[in-house]
């Protein structure tokens, strides 16, 4: 085992994602405490131009046509080989769509412990102390990996990106393993359909979550949005249930918004949702659970019945 930290950088549509820098910055701090080095691995094709921007001890560019777009099988093979060859103390991936395909898979393949949804990381003496947000953000679990090593999935926005930007030396390398005979093949990127409104352009959003109860209640929320001159958006369960189109989804697998007003009805504030709206200028949350995580983020809150509040707002707005 080394005390080195391996950061798996992430890119989408040709651009390195911020989570890559966020992890690198935290990795720097941990490596300094543990006496190790930070290696960033950037898998892709033609990504070398963006490889020089990390505050790493080394940034390893692994260039291969099979890595041009994210492919869980190809990326998994390469990263598993890197872990086997380098035995890093900690391997960091993003708790993102691509990172979630890989983290637990790599952990099992490498016989290492895995921690999901990580939002704090520290080295105390020689021990890694890792905090994970589980149960929809309602519980923080503090864990340490037995044996000292782990593969972790880091939440977007948990650490500042600035600390991970720098000018670490770049090393180019071919894939350390064969990428022949892949069973998963990337076909194409599919861009969001135009046609619906673009919620990211609205100053005011009324956003509904599971607390809205049923599809029949969406109309009431729409009425409130109309009265406020706002657009109606929703959290993931509302979109997955088919009550609002995908174009209205705020959060990790939807859109990031930064409106002047974000009025939330029945959204508890799971970390995936907060990721998409925490920078709104004014956040008002109506949710019946006084311990809902959203009240740690909202500026104003109420635990009143959301339907009664909505009716009263509609009445007051005339």
């Amino acid at each position, binding site marked *: 085992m080394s005390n080195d930290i391996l950061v798996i950088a992430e890119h989408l549509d040709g651009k390195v994602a911020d989570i890559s820098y966020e992890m690198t910055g935290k990795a720097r701090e941990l490596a300094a405490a543990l006496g190790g080095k930070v290696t960033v691995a950037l898998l892709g094709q033609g990504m070398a131009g963006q490889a020089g921007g990390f505050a790493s001890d080394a940034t390893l560019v692994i260039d291969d046509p099979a890595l041009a777009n994210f492919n869980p099988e190809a990326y998994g093979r390469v990263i598993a080989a890197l872990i086997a060859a380098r035995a890093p103390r900690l391997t960091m991936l993003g708790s993102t769509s691509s990172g*979630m395909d890989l983290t637990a898979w790599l952990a099992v393949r490498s016989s290492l412990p895995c921690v999901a949804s990580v939002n704090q990381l520290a080295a105390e003496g020689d021990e890694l102390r890792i905090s994970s947000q589980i149960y929809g953000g309602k519980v923080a679990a503090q864990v340490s990996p037995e044996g000292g090593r782990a593969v972790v999935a880091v939440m977007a926005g948990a650490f500042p990106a600035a600390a991970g930007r720098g000018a670490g030396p770049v090393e180019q390398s071919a894939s350390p393993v064969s990428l022949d005979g892949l069973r998963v093949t990337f076909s194409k990127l599919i861009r969001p359909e135009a046609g619906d409104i673009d919620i990211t352009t609205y100053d005011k959003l009324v956003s509904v979550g599971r607390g809205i109860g049923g599809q029949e209640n969406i109309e009431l929320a729409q009425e409130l949005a109309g009265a406020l001159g706002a657009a109606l958006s929703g959290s993931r369960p509302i979109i*997955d249930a088919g009550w609002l189109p995908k174009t209205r989804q705020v959060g990790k697998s939807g859109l990031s918004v930064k409106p002047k007003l974000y*009025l939330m009805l029945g959204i508890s504030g799971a970390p995936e949702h907060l990721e998409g709206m925490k920078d709104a200028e004014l956040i008002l949350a109506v949710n019946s659970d006084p311990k809902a995580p959203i009240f740690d983020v909202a*500026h104003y809150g109420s635990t*009143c019945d959301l339907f009664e509040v909505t009716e009263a707002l509609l009445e007051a707005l005339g």
Partner: protein
Amino acid sequence: MKIVVAIKQVPSLADEVELNAEGTNLDFDAVDFVLNEWDEQAIEQAVLVKEAGSGAVTVIGVDATGELDGVLHTALAKGADAVAKVAGEFEPGLTSHAQARLLSSAIIDMAPDLVLTGVQAPDDLDGQLGPMLAALMDLPYVGVVNSVQVSGRTATVHKEYAGGLMAEFSVQLPAVIGIQAASQPPRYAPVSKVRQLAKTATIEEIETAEDELESGLSVRSMTRPVSVGHADMIAGDAKAVAGRIIAILNERGLI
């Protein structure tokens, strides 16, 4: 076409969750268990794949709550053809590693063409089930998927990224797919049908020899998250709350 759906029950987050006296996990005596919502999507997607072609859907779980039968009966009512559970004495709070070891050894023997499971669950402290199943069974995995179409020995899947962007992949079967959302919302199972099935259906019990169930994590504590700030809570009834909200919006020139 043999489709297997791996499911688990998780604590309901609709209510407040209580921690145990030691502060090392939830107080599982004080929570209600529900089917992991992403697994519900996986069941729906499995039935849709079956309906679009041919085959049979088997839904399987580890009964860690003593209440899994009801979930399995509901799965049958929604269109599953068979249900199974891993036999043994298990307690609530099984790690993802334990679930994956137990389920993979049962599922391997079923020789499935396609394994679907929810892309994540609220209790995934030590990782998500899908990628672990794939690693243990040496099958390819794609997760965060919202559409699965099978043609011959290939599945075409759509994987969601941020901002509404998606990627299409072709996956050779057999494979494990982690479902974010089924290509249409889960269907409703009439209570009368579930009740009827509870009387007549057979749940296969599968023995496994799996005993390597540790996650390799030592949990030092579980706590409520430390909040850096807190909302200014508006007191009073709905009318008072609405009045205050209007005042706040007026102050800021938002209405």
